[in-house]
């Protein structure tokens, strides 16, 4: 499963990182809490969130996330998108709400990230 597949499944817009859509997505993780993202940090995880502040990009960078999907039609501002571009974090945005977005990805075989760093 690549980011390109994710884009197609979620009918998402690519906000930045068009050239990185061949990256492989290993697992998915959905939440709106930064500390929880950091606790679940594992490389190759796709972050699914409705938070759109710059912290999400820093967090994605620290946790080696493969990319970020913003749900519910949310989009970060231009400076946050630029920051993601500099950090090479691809950003996708879908109008789907978080439950449906996750449900569709799960249906297509994306497994949830495991809580390895906290146990």
């Amino acid at each position: 499963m690549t980011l390109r597949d994710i884009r197609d499944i979620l009918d998402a817009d690519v906000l930045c990182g068009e050239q990185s859509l061949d990256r492989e997505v290993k697992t998915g993780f959905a939440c709106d809490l930064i500390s929880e993202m950091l606790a679940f940090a594992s490389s190759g995880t796709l972050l699914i969130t409705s938070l759109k502040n710059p912290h999400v990009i820093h967090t994605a960078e620290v946790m080696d996330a493969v990319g970020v999907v913003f749900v519910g039609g949310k989009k970060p501002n231009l400076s946050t998108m630029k920051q993601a571009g500099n950090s090479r974090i691809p950003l996708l945005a879908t109008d789907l709400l978080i439950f449906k977005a996750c449900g569709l990805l799960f249906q297509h075989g994306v497994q949830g990230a495991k809580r390895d760093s906290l146990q």
Partner: protein
Amino acid sequence: MTDSRVNSGAPRHVIEFLIREKDFLSAGESASKTKKALQQLGLKAEVAKNSAIIVYEAAMNVVIHAISGKLRVVIVPEEVSIVAEDVGPGIPDIELAMQEGYSTAPHEVREMGFGAGMGLANIEHCSDELNIKSEPGVGTVLEARIRLKQKGDVS
């Protein structure tokens, strides 16, 4: 802000960050910079990531609760140590603050996605050793260490 010095023949790298009250973005920036610096020094990805997580959470604690603070990351061949020292209200009950889910963060902080009461627990899980000294009304010193004894931690 990397300051490389030679100390008794062993390389020592120091990265310092100043953290001010309500300067939320500086926490994430410090974490990103720490990760990049440690990767450039050739440390293992896991060590760079855990150090960055500790810096992020420790800096957020200073931003949220303290008046000002200083964060220092010191890299020597044996370990990475991260010291966060702040001037602020201190932590009255450290054991309680360590519990996952316990939080005294205000609403605005929670809206940003922080203040879930996981910060200190996350720091503990990312470090091999954690010491917190706090004096109510004065401030807090947090020191976390990651040992680099395994071959391959530094290339």
